[in-house]
């Protein structure tokens, strides 16, 4: 049977591309607009684009924060993409202070506009960057994905997870090590956009489709 994925549709992001990428990776995408749709899903993707605060406010306005927290506690697979992963954190400093979902310990902070050597650093971090997989033997999300694969990033803020074991992959930008992916029990996250990362991204989405 084709594995299904419910994409949380709360009015942000490019859900069309994500749906198409899931279909290409062998899954059946559905849009989840309500608490019921979230609670009954086999697996969920929480997308997110733009400002953390706007995304968090929109989830709250639609009454979806509690349902996503309950879903996460149910043990079924949850993948956050870009700001969707950042929302897993406790809080963000983007455009003021905002509360996150509190699914992982950590905070979302702005990438410094200066590289570690003091030179100018372009923000947002836009473009293809190499994924450094923390534990290639153990990772589930990056199973079959070559260490050093290029994936597509677009972000000005970055999640800093407190627990190193949650960090599944990193990338290097301006001399800083940024947390690029998360694996923690049933929780998965990508700071990059798998739906925009060509064949490598489709392989990562394909891995997620196999999780139960």
């Amino acid at each position, binding site marked *: 049977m084709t594995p299904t994925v419910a994409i949380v549709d709360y009015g942000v992001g490019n859900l069309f591309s994500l749906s198409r*990428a899931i279909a290409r990776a062998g899954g059946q995408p559905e849009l989840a607009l309500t608490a019921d749709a979230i609670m009954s899903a086999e697996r969920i993707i929480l997308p997110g684009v733009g400002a953390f605060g706007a995304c968090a406010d929109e989830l709250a306005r639609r009454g979806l924060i509690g349902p996503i927290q309950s879903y996460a506690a149910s043990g079924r697979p949850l993948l956050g993409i870009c700001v969707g992963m950042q929302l897993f954190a406790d809080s963000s400093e983007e455009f003021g202070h905002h509360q996150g979902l509190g699914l992982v310990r950590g905070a979302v902070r702005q990438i410094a506009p200066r590289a570690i050597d003091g030179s100018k650093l372009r*923000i947002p971090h*836009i*473009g293809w960057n190499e994924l450094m997989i923390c534990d290639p033997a153990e990772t589930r999300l990056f199973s079959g994905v070559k260490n050093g694969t290029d994936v*597509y990033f677009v972000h000005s803020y970055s999640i800093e997870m407190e627990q190193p074991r949650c960090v599944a992959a990193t990338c290097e930008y301006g001399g800083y090590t940024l947390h690029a992916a998360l694996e923690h029990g049933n929780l998965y996250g990508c700071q990059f956009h798998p739906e925009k990362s060509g*064949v490598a991204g489709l*392989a990562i989405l394909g891995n997620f489709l196999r999780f139960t």
Partner: protein
Amino acid sequence: MKKIRIIPRLDVKHPHLIKGIHLEGLRVIGDPRQYAEKYYLAGADEIIYMDIVASLYGRNNLIETVRNTAADIFIPLTVGGGIRSVADAEVLLRAGADKVAVNTAAVANPELLGQLSRRFGAQAVVLSIEAKRRPGGNWEAYTDNGRERTGLDVIEWAVKAEQLGAGEILLTSVDREGTRSGFDTDLVFAISSKVNIPVIASGGFGGPAHFNDVVQHGSADAVAIAAAFHYGDVQLPDLKRHARASGIAVRQMGEPV
């Protein structure tokens, strides 16, 4: 190491992919969707779609083309042409675009950049600048495919746009556009050294040497290429091999599935 992005630029006059010289004298090339998919499979890092007649007529024919294209390419897609408002941008983003490029409407109402940035994030907002060299050695921004003067100095406009919320600049040299005679590297350097957001150099690519020049001397973060790809002068994998051999990092492509 930063990867320099190679971005095929498709100028669209619905429903055709077209190409001109200095953004004029348009000639039909083919079906934009087929070209976009071909470039995706060949290793393009992004795709840019510009509806080059939209702002003349104040309407947007691009939505259907965007949706058809986004369905089969899994790399970022920037769409520009005729975007006047947050609502216009939202329609295109929902149709599968990842970023919107604005020129005319941002010149008329610079606050639009801030509105777009607050709503969708700066990463989704590309300021498109059509630059023409002035006799004095600086550049003036134009709109409507290099036809309408704005009176704006390109450097000042780029700096202001960054402050207002643009996340990226698509910098087209009208003088070089479609000529395949090389980028206006001075222009690219003048902007990329003044702003902290990525600059996509556009207009003039004719061969790999031009790519090296605009990256190494213009500090371009990305390079948009139209005519030389559409007419088959240069193939994407060859350009990437050339870049790597020159010590310029570009994205490695996985195997197609």
